[in-house]
């Protein structure tokens, strides 16, 4: 099932399917690209940032960015 990164639940895993055009270059420098596997690690309340685990590290993303990343969620 496909959903926005911002809509993923705690612990949910998925593979990045698409990233909105303008963001692609910016995120590539942070190791976030189409085809990359990630896991939702933390979601902050009240429209706070999300923390995702990729490979061996984790990275936090603002909700605005997380809204523009589409993820194919497992199961």
């Amino acid at each position, binding site marked *: 099932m496909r959903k926005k990164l911002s809509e993923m639940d705690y612990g949910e895993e998925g593979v990045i399917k698409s990233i909105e055009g303008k963001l692609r*270059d*910016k995120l*590539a*420098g*942070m*190791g976030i690209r189409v085809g990359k596997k990630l896991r939702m690690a933390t979601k902050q309340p009240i429209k706070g940032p999300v923390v995702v685990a990729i*490979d*061996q*590290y984790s990275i936090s993303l603002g909700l605005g960015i997380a809204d523009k990343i589409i993820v194919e969620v497992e199961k």
Partner: protein
Amino acid sequence: MKILLMGHPNVGKSAVFNRLTGAKVTESNYPGTTVDYTKGYMRLDGKDVEIIDVPGTFSLEPKDKAEEVAVKMLKENRDSIIICVIDSTKLERGLYLALEIIEEGYPCVVALNMWDVAEDKSIEIDVEKLEDILGVPVVPTIAVSGKGMKELVSRIKEASPVDTKKIVEKARGVA
């Protein structure tokens, strides 16, 4: 000739700088400690060479003040050799920046820093293969303990510009 230390925030550029120059630049355990650059000198083949500790940047398209400084330093020092410091535990995104720098035509040496942390996390990196693909020297280092620093210095002179097309071809061959 100048030497520029470049890499993501919080990969240990300042730690490497301190090792190479014997200086005492502030290091801390959080990212973005260096927002301006620091200059120092090191001995290389009997000559004093200027070495610059550049603020961390994710890519060559600046998104904030510190990154602007970093990119400006790079563009203003066309004749420099770049030591690209990578956090071994975050290899992929580190390589992204390294490739951007190589693509700009700078001679480059890659320091795989925090090698000990990567070992702790059971991350295995085939240094020889990486070196073969990139065509630039790749040296595992642990800046806080000094491991790999001698090799890093001794291999600076091997740095030369690489055509990224060759890297793409090699990477395809491997994959």
